[in-house]
């Protein structure tokens, strides 16, 4: 199992109640900001993070935990390796209106 784990990664999930994307932070709680996420260095810490994720799922705080592989350390901040994770982190690339405040598609 250790061989398939990314060497540099963050633990992510969705908050059970809100569905928000969250990351496991260095201070031992969930954060919505990847820049505050605890980054694993090597497969051993990746395994520890995964175990933490399973415990957090069992405690019903989050759902769907997994590791997001990151680009090498010389990248500016934690940057996902995969296209899907890049898009997930960035949010929709199309404009989302604020609730009740505008008419989408207005001429």
């Amino acid at each position, binding site marked *: 199992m250790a061989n398939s784990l990314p060497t540099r990664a963050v633990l992510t999930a969705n908050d059970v109640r809100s569905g928000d*994307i969250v990351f496991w932070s260095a201070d031992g709680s969930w954060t919505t900001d990847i820049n505050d996420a605890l980054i694993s260095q090597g497969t051993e810490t990746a395994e520890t993070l995964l175990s933490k994720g399973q415990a957090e799922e069992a405690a019903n705080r989050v759902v769907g935990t997994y590791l997001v592989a990151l680009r090498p350390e010389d990248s500016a901040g934690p940057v996902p390796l995969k296209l899907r994770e890049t898009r997930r982190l960035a949010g929709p690339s199309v404009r989302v*209106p604020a609730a009740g405040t505008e008419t*989408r598609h207005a001429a």
Partner: protein
Amino acid sequence: MYAYDTHDQAFVEDRAREFRDQVERRLTGQLSEEEFRPLRLQNGLYLQLHAYMLRIAIPYGELNSTQLRKLGYIADTYDKGYGHFTTRQNIQFNWPKLIDTPDILDHLASVQMHAIQTSGNCIRNVTSDPFAGVAADEFVDPRPVSELLRQWSMLHPEFAFLPRKFKFAVTGAAEDRAAMKFHDIGIWAKTDDSGNPVFDLYVGGGQGRTPRVAKLFEQAVALPDLLPLLDAMLRVYNLHGRRDNKYKARIKILVEELGLENYHDEVRAELAGMDTAPFQSAIDEYERIRAQFEATQPAMEPGESLDLSTASASLQAWVGQNVAAHRVPGWAVVQISVKPKGGIPGDVTGTQMQALADLADAFSAGELRITHRQNVVFPYVWAADLPGLYKGLQDIGLAEDNIGEASDIIACPGLDYCGLATARSIPVAQELSTMLREREATDALGPISLNISGCINACGHHHAANIGILGLNKAEKENYQITLGGRSDENAAVGEVLGPGFDRDQVPAAIGRVLDTYLSLRTAADERFPDTYARVGKAPFKEAVYVGA
């Protein structure tokens, strides 16, 4: 339109209460996610790329203004102010919180709506012709049989855990506007010599990674025989469908592996052993439903068509492009494009939903339809009211005159929202619609369907489009494959892959060259794109796109 009876109403209220209890148990830890997941999916609640997503059923695409107003309220109160009309004539909200979904389901139940069977391996929302009941070319109103199917399939105990999801479409007109042959079972309602409804059944159609056009199963099935036969068709599929491999689990694969004739024989053998007596009540129920549709249809006295000779050019263009023939002279079927130039296909804001509901009350007897092309239809518009309706639509940015044109693009949510997607669909649609609206102003391209899917699952119906685009992930980079020659009408065909895919920024130019080639090869202005393609084949298009680039 159909209104719930006390049984229907009690049922959806019970289900909403049940889901509230399930959510509470999830939040208190009595249910694990593994236990809760099938329960939430049975109520249309997915976990997508960014958040939960709630898909709400709109049976055969028909809504009243009260229901649309409620959807607008939900968008503004519980979501981010907008919703997305889907290719199954449903609506989905992209950002609901789990803690809010019990309240949302209560709101839906209060207007005779729910989210049941919009997910999972069950019979999904039955889709139909958005012109049902008013189409000039209609043989039989498909809504009564669609509603009968809804009731038959709702929590059908045998068909709640099929090998894979199962999709019905029903049409009853000469022109297939429901993509009936791209469904697991397609039903084409007609009339016999005595004027009674009869049904041609097609089986084994579908899209995804194995696109197939449905094959004719039986013709002129009489109403009393319809439900028993459908039940037998599902039973044989349920028994023999490939549960070992989800990619081979749809009925199209079973029909192909068994052969149509053998599948037919098995169904007839199953039917011969069935007790069909319980189905006899369906005949009375069909009549009850049909009578209700008829009684609630607004009175439409024939009148004169609208004289547009002094109307503005923009109103003339909109009427010419977006208004379809109504079965009653002097009335109009109005198609409202949810595909503005550079806009997001099928997305409407809560504000627009409220305004559309008001316009439906003012101009369409309070009724409207959602189409599988992600647009809206007003079925009961008095021709003299067209200018007033047009003005109202202009005020909310929904007066684009492009129905049926290439810029009337179908697009799935793609990698902007969907957890299964491999590439984005929406930005490609936006760029193309900007390019195409400019071209359509000068080039008279005529009707062309252009559909985009963000993965091989083909929710954007790319296989069924004259011009299809499939977004893929190629070495962690978005890549777009073009297919040509597909069509979803009564002459349904699967599009052919043109060649290697393109980077996203190359797509508009490639589509432009496809259109240039069509214009140069068509024999007359009324030779449609798929007819030109069928006549000349892929080669000239391929040469123009790859060699001439």
